[in-house]
């Protein structure tokens, strides 16, 4: 039963999810919306507890075993606890203070302030690395080692040249040709890949709903 119950639940919810696409009746749509929003939210809330537990466990192990760079684990744990306390007790709206004061002598450490002024810039810093990685990836991609790489190099060269005024000056129809590369061969390949992807999604969903793919059952599963 430990194995059969999840399979039955998946079968029922899978069929239910599929039929709501064909049945517009509000009774069914309301139940579907409740399933997608409320039930998923509740499951995620439970999952979050497990996630935080895992994060703490991972870093406690690092500290206990004095693994490489273990002092950073203290920073992670302290940051997690401090931001959780500020978030839970300091309130979500900066204009409505919670139990915990989040403004002291003109200095704000409200959770929104921390998010906007610390997490967002740190994320942007990581994102900005992309520019450098793109340059190194482009260098690797554009080395004409074989026919495919040469074609890639030629297409990229035409596209880049077609996107700047110099391209038109060198050869008038170049921008149109660059546009054609994007709109016809590139689009055809993308659509071909997308067809495969959609069928793959369909097949995977069907395998799970029918109970053929059972890896997700974990300890109770097996094929």
């Amino acid at each position, binding site marked *: 039963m430990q194995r059969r119950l999840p399979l039955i639940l998946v079968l029922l919810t899978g069929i239910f999810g599929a039929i709501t*696409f*064909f*049945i*517009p*009746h*509000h*009774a069914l*749509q309301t139940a579907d919306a409740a399933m997608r929003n409320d039930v*998923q939210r509740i*499951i*995620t809330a439970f*999952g979050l507890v*497990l*996630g935080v537990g*895992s*994060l703490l*466990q991972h870093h406690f*192990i690092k500290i206990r075993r004095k693994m*490489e*760079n273990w002092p950073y684990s203290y920073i992670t744990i302290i940051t997690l606890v401090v931001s959780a306390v500020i978030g839970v007790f300091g309130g979500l709206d900066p204009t409505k203070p919670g139990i915990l004061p989040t403004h002291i002598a003109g200095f704000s450490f409200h959770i929104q302030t921390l998010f906007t002024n610390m*997490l967002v810039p*740190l*994320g*942007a*810093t*990581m*994102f900005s*690395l*992309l520019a450098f*990685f*793109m340059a*190194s*990836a*482009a260098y*690797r*991609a554009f080395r004409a080692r074989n026919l495919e790489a040469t074609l890639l190099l030629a297409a990229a060269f035409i596209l880049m040249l077609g996107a700047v005024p110099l391209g038109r000056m060198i050869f008038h129809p170049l921008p149109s040709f660059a546009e054609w590369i994007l709109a016809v061969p590139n689009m055809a390949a*993308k659509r071909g*890949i997308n*067809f*495969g*992807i959609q*069928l*793959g*999604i*369909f*097949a*995977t*969903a*069907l395998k*799970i709903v*029918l109970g*053929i*793919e059972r*890896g*997700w*059952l*974990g*300890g109770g*599963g097996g*094929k």
Partner: protein
Amino acid sequence: MALSCIVALLLCSISPPGSVAARDVPNDGGGSIAVTWAPSPESSVTGYYVLRQTKGDTTWDTLRFAGRLAAEYSDGEATDGTDYRYKVIAVAPTESAESAPSAYAASSPQWFNTDTIPALVGTAVLVFMFVYFINRARQGRNLFIRRISGLDAVDEALGRATEMGRPTLYVPGISSIADVATIAALNILGEVAKKTAKFGTPLIVPTADPIVYTVAREMVKESYTTAGRPDAFNQDIVFFVTDAQFAYAAAVDGIMTREKPATNFLIGMFYAEALILAETGAATGAVQIAGTDAVTQLPFFITACDYTLIGEELYAASAYLSREPLLLGAIKGQDYSKAIIVGVIVVATLLALLAGVPVLKYL
């Protein structure tokens, strides 16, 4: 004087909107009535007021003001089973003209959306193909699946990690479990974990979603048990990092540079962090096997990784690795379904082209 006034009145007066009709919006969940009208021909009309009256009431409620080009309005605030009628007032700067009321109409929810019939037929055909090939696989028929070099390289890549005594890093994307690509990534993780358990290679699985973390941990645990190495499993193989995109990228980059895994699997749904992860992995000298159905990230993986599972190969991977007959049957069904779709596209294209030939128009 009197004549000039009559002429002016005739010139200025606007015609009321004609043919005001109300009907239940088809194929919906109820609560909507579509109102249509023939616009007034005069160019001085600036717009239309749509009014509604409930059967039995004497008052008219104004629903909205529609622009002068409007000829329809969908009343989404109707109560199912209640009869309403509508009238439309054309408005000009100095005057207005009111239409005759429409007939009464009531909204009702439908139990089947007839617009989805093609999708239903397509789904039925695809389901039939899958069930047929799964049954063939059940009967023990040999099903040929083409070689996928990225998956053939899994053993080699894991063997390399074992020989070098370095760990294997498996990144299951940053999306949630609701994404089918994540489910496919977890299915592949199950097969990879069986092999790492067999080879005794350390496995690191950082996750970006609490639910993905829970499922991944159970799958890895099951794989270690199936491989006969439950003792080699520890709770710290799979761990939750963060659900913030670039914080996760920073954490995984840190693992790559500190632990120097010999093999990196980047499989699942990725966004802008794809290249950051793949380039860092390439810089550490790891063998990298990537797979995603995010078409925009595929070029980055192809460039920075040794092997890339493109689109549908991601969904075929767990069957390919496990060689489970039933799963292979599903792939075969998938291939034939694709052949049917390609066939339909070719036939439809030919028909569309032939429809342009003048002689064939008479056939």
